[in-house]
C-alpha cells in the first residue's frame, strides 16, 4: 500500500515538473473555435470553455495543488509541533492557554473556518494558504501535546533532566524526535487534506482566481458544461482523487509501519 501510494505521488510530482513535455500546449492559450471539444488525438483531455487544453491545465494545476499542500503542511506541522510540545511538556498555565485556543479552533468543523477567513480576507491563493494553515496547525498541536505528556514521564527524559539538560535541549532532542513518526503520518495524510481543501475553496470561488489553472476552479467552471462537455469536469476531478488517494495510501502505510498498534 505504501509503495502504491509513493508511486502515485512520485508520478504526479514528475508530471507536474515536466508538464510541457507531456502536453506541449500553453495552458493559457485559447483556441475559441475548438471550445468544449472533447478528447482527441492532439488534445488528450479535450478543451475547456475557452478552448484551452485541459491536459496542460491539469498539469499546471498539479503544481498549485502540490505547492499549497507543501506550504500548508510544512508550516502547520512545524507550528503545531512546537505549540503541542510546549503545551504538553510545560503543562500549567501555558498548556491551559494553548489548549483553549485549540478547543475554540476545533469547534469549527473542517473547512468552515477557512471559508469564513477567506470570505473576509478576499479570494486569493495566499489567503487560502493562510486560512488552511490557521486551521491546520491545531491537529498537529493536539497530537503532539498528547504525546509530549506521555514522553515527559519516560525514564530517559527524567535521566536527561537529572543530568542537567536544559528545557530547550530536552524538547528538541528528546520530546520532539519521539513524536516525529506520528507527525510524519499526520503530515502525509494532511497533504491529501490540504489539496482537497484548496480545491474545495477554489471550487466555491474563494481560492485561486482565473486565469491561474487550479483543479478546483476548473471543476467549478466545468459545472456549467456538465451536459455538453463532461470531460471538463471529469479530468481535473480524477486528478484530485488520484493524488489524494496516493497520499492516503502512503499515510496509511506509514502509520502501519511506524505505529504497529494502530
Amino acid at each position: 500500500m505504501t509503495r502504491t501510494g509513493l508511486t502515485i505521488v512520485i508520478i504526479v510530482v514528475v508530471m507536474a515538473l515536466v508538464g510541457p513535455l507531456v502536453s506541449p500546449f500553453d495552458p493559457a492559450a485559447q483556441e475559441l473555435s475548438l471550445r468544449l471539444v472533447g478528447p482527441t488525438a492532439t488534445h488528450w483531455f479535450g478543451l475547456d470553455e475557452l478552448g484551452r487544453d485541459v491536459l496542460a491545465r491539469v498539469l499546471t494545476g498539479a503544481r498549485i495543488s502540490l505547492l499549497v499542500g507543501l506550504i500548508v503542511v510544512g508550516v502547520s506541522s512545524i507550528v503545531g509541533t512546537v505549540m503541542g510540545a510546549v503545551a504538553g511538556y510545560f503543562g500549567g498555565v501555558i498548556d491551559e492557554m494553548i489548549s483553549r485556543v485549540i478547543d475554540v479552533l476545533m469547534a469549527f468543523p473542517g473547512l468552515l473556518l477557512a471559508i469564513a477567513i477567506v470570505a473576509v480576507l478576499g479570494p486569493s491563493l495566499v489567503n487560502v494558504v493562510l486560512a488552511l494553515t490557521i486551521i491546520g496547525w491545531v491537529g498537529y498541536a493536539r497530537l503532539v501535546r498528547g504525546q509530549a505528556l506521555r514522553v515527559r514521564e519516560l525514564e530517559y527524559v527524567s535521566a536527561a533532566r537529572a543530568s542537567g539538560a536544559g528545557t530547550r535541549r530536552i524538547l528538541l532532542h528528546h520530546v520532539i524526535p519521539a513524536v516525529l513518526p506520528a507527525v510524519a503520518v499526520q503530515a502525509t495524510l494532511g497533504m491529501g487534506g490540504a489539496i482537497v481543501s484548496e480545491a474545495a475553496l477554489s471550487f466555491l470561488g474563494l481560492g485561486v482566481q482565473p486565469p491561474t489553472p487550479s483543479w478546483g476552479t476548473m471543476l467549478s467552471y466545468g459545472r456549467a458544461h456538465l451536459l455538453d462537455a463532461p470531460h471538463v469536469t471529469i479530468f481535473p476531478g480524477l486528478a484530485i482523487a488520484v493524488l489524494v488517494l496516493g497520499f492516503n495510501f502512503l499515510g496509511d502505510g506509514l502509520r502501519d509501519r511506524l505505529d504497529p498498534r494502530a
Partner: protein
Amino acid sequence: MLAVLVFLARRLVLTIPVLLGVATLVFSLIHLIPGDPAQSILGEAAVPADVEALRHTLGLDRPLIVQYGGFLAGLVQGNLGTSLRTGEPVTSQIADRIPATFELALAAMVVAIAVAIPLGLAGAVWRGTIADHAAMTMALAGVSIPNFWLGPLLAIVFGVEFGWLPVSGRGGIEHLILPAISLGGALAAIVARLTRATVIEELREQYVTAARSRGASRRRAVLGHAFRNSLIPIVTVVGLQFGAVLTGAVITETIFSWPGIGRLLVQSIGFRDYPMVQGCILFIAVTYVGVNLATDLLYGVLDPRIRYR
C-alpha cells in the same frame, strides 16, 4: 446516578468557554476585512455618505468593546443582526433554511451507515481475503474522492445520461438521492473502516470465544456479540462526523442548488452580506459543538468507563 449528573454538569460547563470563544472569533471576522468594512461592502465607487450610513447600520462607528457587548447581548436574545441584501433578520432567514440542511445531512448519514456497516462487517469477517481488500480499497477511494467531484459525476451519469433523477432543487425523495449520496460518500468510507477495525478488535475478546464455545454460531458471535459492542464507537464517530457533513453540505448544496444554509452562506459571501455570513458560520459551528456535546454525553451515559476519566 450522582456520577452521571456530575459528568453531565462538568461537560456542560466546559462547553461555555468554547462557545464564547466561537462567538468572539465570529464577531472579529468583520474586523478582519482589510481596510474599511463598509467601504469594502459598498465598493470603491460608493459615496462617503452611504459608507457612513452603513458604518452606522453595522455599528462600526461605536467603540469596539460596545460592539462586542452588543453582539453577545444580541446573540443571547437570538438576534444576529439584519441581512444587508434582503433587510430581513438573519435569524429568520437561517431558520427558514434549517429544515433543508438537516434533511440533507440526515439523509447523507443514513446512506453512509447503510453502505458502511455491511462493508465494514464484510471486511472484518473475511479479513485478509479479496473481499476485505476490495471493501477497504473502495473505502479509501471513497475518502479520497472529493464531494465536489462525486456530485457532478453523479449528476452526469444519473441526471444527464440516464435522466433518472433531478440534479437541482429540493422536492420529493427523488431530489434527495443524488445530494445525499454525494455528501454521504466520504462518511461511508470512514465508518466502513472504523466498523472493520472495531469488529476485528472485539472478535479477539474472550467473551466472543466464550460465546462460541457455548455453541453460538459464528453469525451470532459476530452480529450478536462483537458487532453489538462495536456500536458505541461507531455511533460516536458518526455523531462526531456530523460537523464534517454540515461543512460538506456547503459544497453539496451549491452543486445541487439545494436551498439550505450552506448555499445561503456561499451566496452571502458573493454578495458581501457579512452579517449573514457571520450568522451562518455561527449557526453551523454552534450546531457542531452541540452535536459533539450530545454525542459525548450519550457516550458517557452508555459507557461508565468514560465518566471516571
